Structure formats: structure tokens, C-alpha cells
């Protein structure tokens, strides 16, 4: 079901004959285009100014008030050290979302660069890059991330490296594939005919075509990266105490599930909301890029 945006009739914006008929029949639906931007805005605000939402100090220890149920003072209750869980979640989601964005953007940049090299470079470069991606992709991604993170020693930086290493190959493959099909198009042939340097062909001619699809992919992957990141933290490989990170919060909470149900369950809702936002934004970008939603 496609929605139609009817522009007001004006000489600069001709309406297609079908839309004209539709308008005459009075059957038109408009779709608001602005809500994904609002969503991004809200998250940006949350990440940069967590104090806006979290009124308490996420690090303040208060053992007297340990494991309190959710209430007016503590919206998500307190954990075993008396810290406000809601505040920890808000500060924690900054790490989850922030690092996931870093991971995916880094992976996309590295992947696109290598994919471009593979697609536009000589046979050797192509083979080298492709065999490398084959090696990385031969491993199940979580397992590989765990192995790398374990080797480097736990920490947020480690997880960043591990997940970027796991994520870049699919971008390399994607970009290379697109380049291979774009390479045959007339405007690229034209650019080659006048001896445009290859990196310019890539950045000026091909990237604009790839960009919308890449953005969509990046947005959705941010969602998946959040899931992977929190999963690794849950296993103890990510943030170390006392850094609040949603995965490790839930891991700590596991010991107190029976006494303090809010501690383990409510933080997860934060993750869910973050990932859903990412996927929904990504779907919107994908539709705008002309694909179908994931």
C-alpha cells in the first residue's frame, strides 16, 4: 500500500496524470515525513544530555536503599548497591547506542573503502579483499566477536574492535557488489574515458548512488549492533564495573531476579526501544532508497 503525497498544484511541480485523477476522486492519503527525524533527535538529546531524563546519579552508592521496588523516587527501583536503576539505564544506553553507532559507522567506512578497492582496483586487490572477507565471514559472528574480545581482554574498547572486525566484511561485499554493477553504466564508462582517477569515480560518481542504501543499512545495523554489544556485555566482555552498560546491568541483575524483578526486566525495555527505533528508522530510509523494508 503506497501512500500518495499530493503536492499543491503549481507550475514547478507537475502532478502525474494518475495523481490528478486521484485528487479529482478525492482519494488521497498524506504521510508525515518528519517522524524519523524526531526520533533521531530524541535519541541524540538523550545521549548528549542524559541528565535531562535521569535525575539521579547513576554512580551514587546507597546500600541502605538497596533493591527497592520502583516508585516515585526511583522509577526503575534500585540495584544491589542502592543505585538508581533508571539513571543507570539512561547513562548506560548512551554507551550502548553510542558505541554501536561508532562500530557500524567505522565498519561501514572501512568496508566501503575496501569494497571500493576490490571493485575498482586490479585483480590482486579484489582477490585479497574478497579472501579476507571470506575468512571473517566463515565464522559465526557472535562467536568471532567473543573470541576476539576474549583475546584482547574485556572492556568497551575491546568490544568496539571486536564488533567492527565482525561487521566490516558485509559492507565490503555490499559495496563491491554495487560497484560491479555500476561499473558497466554509461556515465562511469564516460568518466573512465576521460581518465578520471578511480578514487574520484568512486567518490563522485558511485557513492551518491550507493549512499541511500548504505544509510539504510547502517541504521538497521546499528540496531543489531546494540543487540550484539549488550549480549557481549552480558557475558562479561564489555563494560566493566562500575560503568553502567545495559548488558552488564542485566547480567548483574540476574543474581537478584527473584527478589527484584524490576532490576533485570526494566533495563531490557530500554534496549528494546533503542533497537526498535533503529530498525524503524532504517526501514524508513530503506523505503526512501527504493528498497523494501527488512
Amino acid at each position: 500500500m503506497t501512500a500518495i503525497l499530493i503536492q499543491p498544484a503549481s507550475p514547478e511541480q507537475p502532478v502525474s496524470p494518475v495523481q490528478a485523477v486521484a485528487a479529482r476522486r478525492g482519494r488521497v492519503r498524506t504521510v508525515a515525513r518528519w517522524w524519523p527525524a524526531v526520533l533521531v533527535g530524541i535519541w541524540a538529546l538523550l545521549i548528549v544530555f542524559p541528565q535531562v531524563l535521569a535525575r539521579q546519579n547513576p554512580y551514587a552508592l546507597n546500600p541502605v536503599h538497596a533493591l527497592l521496588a520502583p516508585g516515585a523516587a526511583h522509577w526503575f527501583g534500585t540495584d544491589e548497591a542502592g543505585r538508581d536503576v533508571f539513571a543507570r539505564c539512561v547513562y548506560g544506553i548512551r554507551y550502548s547506542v553510542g558505541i554501536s553507532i561508532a562500530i557500524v559507522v567505522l565498519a561501514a567506512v572501512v568496508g566501503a573503502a575496501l569494497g571500493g578497492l576490490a571493485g575498482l582496483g586490479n585483480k590482486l586487490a579484489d582477490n585479497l579483499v574478497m579472501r579476507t572477507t571470506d575468512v571473517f565471514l566463515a565464522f559465526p559472528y557472535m562467536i568471532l566477536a567473543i573470541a576476539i574480545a576474549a583475546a584482547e581482554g574485556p572492556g568497551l574498547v575491546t568490544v568496539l574492535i571486536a564488533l567492527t572486525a565482525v561487521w566490516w566484511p558485509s559492507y565490503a561485499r555490499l559495496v563491491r557488489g554495487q560497484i560491479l554493477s555500476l561499473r558497466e553504466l554509461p556515465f562511469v564508462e564516460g568518466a573512465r574515458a576521460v581518465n578520471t582517477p578511480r578514487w574520484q569515480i568512486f567518490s563522485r560518481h558511485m557513492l551518491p548512488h550507493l549512499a541511500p542504501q548504505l544509510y539504510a543499512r547502517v541504521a538497521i545495523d546499528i540496531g543489531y549492533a546494540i543487540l550484539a554489544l549488550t549480549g557481549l556485555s552480558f557475558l562479561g566482555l564489555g563494560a566493566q564495573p562500575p560503568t553502567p552498560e545495559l548488558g552488564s546491568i542485566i547480567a548483574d541483575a540476574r543474581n537478584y531476579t527473584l527478589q527484584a524483578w524490576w532490576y533485570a526486566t526494566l533495563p531490557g525495555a530500554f534496549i528494546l526501544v533503542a533497537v526498535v527505533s533503529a530498525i524503524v528508522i532504517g526501514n524508513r530510509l530503506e523505503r526512501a532508497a527504493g528498497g523494501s523494508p527488512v
Partner: protein
Amino acid sequence: MTFTAQYVARRLGAAVLVLLVVISGTFLLSHAIPADPARAAAGLHAGAAQVRAVAHQLGLDQSLWSQFGTYMGNVLRGNLGISYVSRTSIAPQLTAAVPATLELVVYSFLVCAIFGVIAGMAEAWWPRKVGTHLVRGTSILGTALPVFWFAIILQLVFAARLGWFPIESRLSSDTIPPPHITGFYTLDALLSGRWSTFGDAAVHLVLPVLSLVAWMFALTSRVAEKSFATELTRPYVQTAKARGVTSGRLLWRHVLRNALNPIITMLGLQFGWLLGGTILVEVVFSWGGIGSVMYTALQNFDYPVIEAVTLVSTIAFVVVNLGVDLLYPVIDPRIRRS
């Protein structure tokens, strides 16, 4: 050689190559550890001489190439090394743990594949009914679900609070495992006629499988729906309808085989995810499979075990993808040219 035989041979060859690369990769990973493995093995309080002795014992004072050679040789013979923590051979430890994980993985996979395909088929056949919007909405939620969190919620609600299912483990503490035939408690119990054991094992499987399936199902049904929807626009569907076939016959005999290709490709890839998700679920439910083994190893910095589990899961992944590759000619005769 017929084309199919060539195809199979090529795929097998590629798989073997990938396996060798994977083994090398794992080896390299283990040697990227910043910590001194000999010291880690010897323990924090060991003296320098002891560390040297341990290093020699573990072969860590040899050149990288000879270490690699030893490693490769060992792996190919099934020797996965020695745990730093328990000082015993890893391979038997894993062999005991693998069936537990396998049982979990196989059931999750089957449930997800079967119900996912059926759901996708239904959604493609009856588009735009009220149910579809609901399914699409929950589908996004399903994809966004953190597995470990969902597992905890299931555990809390259905086990702890409602008591419908057990909280953890594969069997109740007072149940004796059935005699070992396949390693699957459910199958072994059935094969040896122990109905109550079967019931116990089955009931313990419900929540863990559900946790894994929730995420996978969303993606599977979406891919299935897209695939079926695409197939339903193809000309042969109209031709079949023109002959008077019923919807059932149309879907099962005509469309299904054509729609399977992208679905099994995706299932193959999802298996990779499943391996990761299984670790998380095993942790939450104290399952005792290789996921639990991995978790313990992570907490103890038991690198050989981490390495071994990585290797084993990756091998499984490679094998499953090989299987998927070999399925294509079976489904699609156009690939079978002889």
C-alpha cells in the same frame, strides 16, 4: 562426471579449505592474547621458574610455525588442548557438552523453520487481513528482542512466578538421564521407553527454545513471506490456477519448492546467529552445553577452552552452510544440468 557431482566436489573442496583457514584463524586469535599464556596457565602466584616450566610444557617456547604445526596436527586428530583451569583434556569435556547444545539448537531450528515458513506462506496468501498488521508489528519487535533479556523474562514469568515450566537445566534434579543413544534426552527417553523422563526433558526445553525462536521466527517469516509473495506473482501460478488447482495444491506442490531458495539461504546464515544466541540462552538457563562451557571459560580466562569452543562452533557453521549449498541442486533442477 556429471555436473551435480562436480558441484558437490567443488563445494566439499571449498568447505575443507575454509575449515583449514578457520583452524589457522583460531590459532592466530589465541596468539593475539596480550596476557602471557604461560603465566595465565601457571597461575598468578607462580614463580619465574615455574612459568618457564609451564611454558615448556605447553610448547609455548617453540617457534610460531612449529606451534602452528602442532596445533593443526592436534586438531585434526581431535585433540583440542588442555584447559588451564581443570588441567584436563578439553575434547572429552566438549563431547559431553555438545549433545545438550545440539538438542537445543536442532529443536529451535526446526520450530523456527517450520512455523516461520508456514507463517510466511499464510501472510503472502492472505495479505492485508487484520492479522497481517499485527504480525508485521510483532515482527519488528521480535527482531529487536535481546535474546538474553527475553530468556530472563520468560524464566521470571513462566517459571518463577507462574511455575508452569522449570527454571533451569535440562532435567529436574531428581530425574535420571536416559541411557545415552543419541545424546538428546528427548530422543533417548523415547527410544528407551521412559515416558516420564521424556516429559521432563521436553518441559525443560520449552522456555530455552522459545527464547531462541522468538528472534529467529520474525526474520524467517519475513523472508518467507517475501519469497512467497514474489513467487505468487510469477506466471506459472496463474497457469496452474487456470487448470483448476486448489489453493492447497498450488501452494504445496507448485510454489513451495520455488520459494525455498532464499529461505534456506537465510536459514543457513541464521544458524550462525543461533550459535551466538545459544550461548546467551545456555547461560540464563544453566543448560550445561558448550555455551555454558564457554561462559565459564570466559569468566576464568581459560583461553584454550575459549579457542576450542570457537573452533567447534565454527566447524558446525561451515558444515551447515555446506549442507545448504548442497541442498540447492536438490530443490532446483535448473542447477542440476548434467
